[in-house]
């Protein structure tokens, strides 16, 4: 039997950190989790938390209700302390609040938690495996990268692993050793796959040891290391080693196809071993790696985990008065307002003997904050032949100047280019200017104009930004002359029709837009497009980069003032 990640994790839960299960809610996921749970020691805690658990529930703290009714500090243990020696599951992990993720990473690194507040000091060991239930669909909906980094496995459960008895393996595990050349081969395989973090290699080593223990071996065998490469290294690959060599043979068959034979071949050299590991990993490479073009987009999305309406409970920013509410979690109590709310009732309320004032839950007022709206400027740049040849350089110059403005304002920028058959998101929304500049410099020109696809791509980005609580501004740079329809077929009439439709979709979505007409002479087509999109139309007959930049800068300011 080839062990599954569930077997390895059940055997060494703390050492392997855990697993990110990317799958929607459903029977496959439940069956996988049930198998994992069956194989864990009987007493192991198993706790499930929502993605935005407040600190006092996560770490522990003062139980405010009990404290108020008893009149002395009452401590409340947090989930992280309760889950020691067990498994912590986070539901909808792709929507995890960054602060929750930061608490969990700190607990995983230190293996204990300390809560210090006046009159209370809780210290508790917490060694647990983390299971992130990632229900994200869009590629950018991912759990926080800092957490993924600390988990050995990431997978989509398909078949339920068969539960096995791990008691013998558990006894054997501390004595399993790994030959040095195998360790070296694993490091080399990680390097070849473009896996930078040493953590990944360490997880692979632990996974290989666990696999050996399950097979009853004291020394890690090649099959164990190959399994570890498949399960741990391959999903993190940022490079397809097979694609590096031009005329490489198709990836060798996955390890399942290698029959388990008892005849042991002579020990392979580290080089051979590395090849074996890479071949095993090839079976489980992320699908997009097989396409080099998409690779760039992936690595630039490293941030992750910011999706969702995290901004709603803004706890920082400019104060905006107070409202009634519980001072739980990240809400901050407005002391004066609370006292003010309690004041009229003092004569009526029975006061605890030692207290000077009687405060009840209904008096609590919490602070509200207003956060400056972040803006994302999405540039949709027409890089086609008609537009490109003489205007692309100026469009690039304008974008660069705007980038410098965005840098000062700490806004985000994104870049969509359309030319040839389709639009491409060259730069997902980012603060990183150097990267923006690189992707801009690499933008080639020429080819027909798939205007509709460009507008669609910009709209999709704008929607994603608004979902994340940021204002979006779409800056379209085109001469308005489309000649490729949405489905990639040529033909000016269809293309123009599709473009108008895409423009109307922008207006319907309520996205603010600016259209910079980059043609040498103002084009009626561009004007009509701007009207359909509800966009500000700026003909730029003698536009230079400075003027474009000023026009867009003014629009951003209007957007932020709104």
């Amino acid at each position, binding site marked *: 039997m080839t062990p599954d990640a569930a077997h390895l994790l059940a055997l060494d839960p703390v*050492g392997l950190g855990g697993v990110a299960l990317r799958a929607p809610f459903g029977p496959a996921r439940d069956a996988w989790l049930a198998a994992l749970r069956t194989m864990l020691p009987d007493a192991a805690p198993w706790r499930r938390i929502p993605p935005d658990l407040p600190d006092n529930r996560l770490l522990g703290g003062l139980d405010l209700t009990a*404290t*108020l009714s008893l009149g002395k500090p009452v401590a409340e243990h947090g989930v992280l302390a309760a889950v020691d020696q067990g498994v912590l599951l986070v539901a909808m992990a792709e929507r995890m*609040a*960054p*602060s929750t*993720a*930061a*608490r969990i990473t*700190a607990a995983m690194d*230190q*293996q*204990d938690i*300390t809560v*210090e*507040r*006046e*009159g209370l*000091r809780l*210290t508790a*060991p917490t060694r647990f495996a983390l299971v992130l239930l990632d229900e994200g669909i869009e590629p950018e909906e991912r759990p926080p*990268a*800092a957490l993924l*980094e600390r988990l050995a496995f990431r997978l989509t459960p398909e078949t339920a692993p068969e539960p096995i008895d791990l008691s013998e393996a558990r006894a054997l595990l501390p004595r399993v050793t790994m030959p040095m050349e195998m*360790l*070296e081969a*694993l*490091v080399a395989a990680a*390097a070849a796959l473009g896996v*930078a*973090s*040493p*953590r*990944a*290699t*360490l997880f692979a*080593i632990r996974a290989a040891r666990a696999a050996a223990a399950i097979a009853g071996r004291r020394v890690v065998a090649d099959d164990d290391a190959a399994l570890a490469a498949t399960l741990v290294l391959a999903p993190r690959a940022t490079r397809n080693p097979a694609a590096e060599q031009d005329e490489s043979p198709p990836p060798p068959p996955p390890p399942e196809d290698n029959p388990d034979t008892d005849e042991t071949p002579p020990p392979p050299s580290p080089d051979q071993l590395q090849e074996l590991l890479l071949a095993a990993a090839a079976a489980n490479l992320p699908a997009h790696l097989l396409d080099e073009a998409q690779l760039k987009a992936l690595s630039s999305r*490293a*941030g992750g985990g910011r999706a969702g309406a995290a901004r709603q409970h803004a*706890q920082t920013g400019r104060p905006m008065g107070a409202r009634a509410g519980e001072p739980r979690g*990240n809400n*901050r*109590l407005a*002391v*004066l307002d*609370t006292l003010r709310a309690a004041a009229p009732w003092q004569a009526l309320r029975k006061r605890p003997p*030692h*207290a*000077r004032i009687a*405060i009840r839950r209904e008096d609590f007022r919490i602070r509200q904050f207003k956060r400056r709206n972040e803006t994302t400027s999405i540039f949709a740049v027409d890089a086609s032949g008609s537009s490109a040849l003489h205007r692309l350089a100026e469009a690039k110059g304008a974008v*660069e100047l705007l*980038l*410098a403005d965005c*840098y000062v304002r*700490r806004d985000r920028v994104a870049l969509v280019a359309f030319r040839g058959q389709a639009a491409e998101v060259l730069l997902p929304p980012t*603060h*990183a*200017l*150097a990267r923006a*500049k690189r992707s801009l410099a690499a933008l080639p020109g020429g080819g027909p104009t798939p205007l509709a696809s460009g507008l669609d791509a910009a709209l999709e980005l704008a929607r994603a930004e608004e979902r994340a609580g940021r204002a979006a501004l779409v800056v379209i740079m085109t001469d308005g002359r489309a000649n490729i329809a949405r489905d990639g077929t040529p033909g000016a009439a269809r293309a123009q029709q599709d473009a108008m439709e895409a423009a109307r979709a922008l207006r319907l979505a309520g996205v603010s837009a600016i259209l910079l007409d980059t043609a040498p002479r103002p084009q009626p087509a561009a004007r009509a497009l701007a009207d359909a999109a509800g966009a500000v139309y700026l003909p730029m007959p003698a536009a230079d980069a400075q003027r474009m930049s000023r026009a867009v800068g003014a629009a951003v300011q209007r957007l932020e003032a709104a």
Partner: protein
Amino acid sequence: MDGMLAAQKESRTATRKPVFPFTAIVGQEELKLALLLCAVDPMIGGVLALGDRGTGKSTAVRALAQLLPDMHVVLGDPYNAEPTPSTPPEQIAVARVPVVDLPLGASEDRVVGALDLERALTRGEKAFEPGLLARAHRGFLYIDEVNLLEDHLVDLLLDVAASGENVVEREGISLRHPARFVLVGSGNPEEGELRPQLLDRFGLAVDVRTPDDLPTRIAVVKRRDSYERDPHAFLRRHHKAEERQRAALLKARALLPRVKVPDAVLEDASRLCMALGTDGLRGELTLLRTARALAALDGKRVVSRDQLRRIALPSLRHRLRRNPLDDASSSSRVERALAETLPG
């Protein structure tokens, strides 16, 4: 209360996994040196480590704190106060040098401290609940992903780190308490940049990269794996090296006040800063302070050009005026200026 604290502290040391030893860290020489220099002279102003994930940044900080000798504190004092000659002996406790992590979502009241709500509400007392800055006093404040921290918090931290004092004026509370700590920030510049105004307030800046040669990577993994297999045995193997490093550090601290900077080195520092066009005098001041700490670490009483050259890169690379769109590496600019102004 005191007995309880002591008991809790014992249980804490018992459960905590031993810290990876500083001297066992493979590579990352620049980061290790920067941290050591700040430990010799905390006034250098902290370290900013920019680079990839999983390169041992937080390991290095925790390891260094472990390396430092335990400090005497007033028992139960929330600010890690140093005992004075008048402190009764039974009030003196021994504590580890604190390393405080600043979580990304931290709010201002958690950082600077705030009115103790529970006491205000349940007992009607106006009491101050110290924040993370109080806990970091005489130790290290580590901020992972400092580039993602909100600007006003970074401002505040840098102010406190520079002045050594936390001034609280909020919710009817007015107090100040000492908060001298070494600020260590880390982050991945690909995920967002730090404003230039904040960059140059860090004393030193180091680039942390995943080693790209195979032998080093193998050595990193081997060391770490053998540590994870048996931390206590690993610690015993590195005990001697740790003791040596600790002794060198203490010697350097004792030597530091007596280290002299000759005028020629002062001139070298100014020439270097002028060649690079750094704003203000912070560059020169950091260069001198850091060179002095390095001389002390080398066991020298006089700073030489060699020490200046060795610390020029981390002291200056984040102080260059730059076009935000220009990705020419600032490290190479410092190196070039170094070769031109201080030919060795």
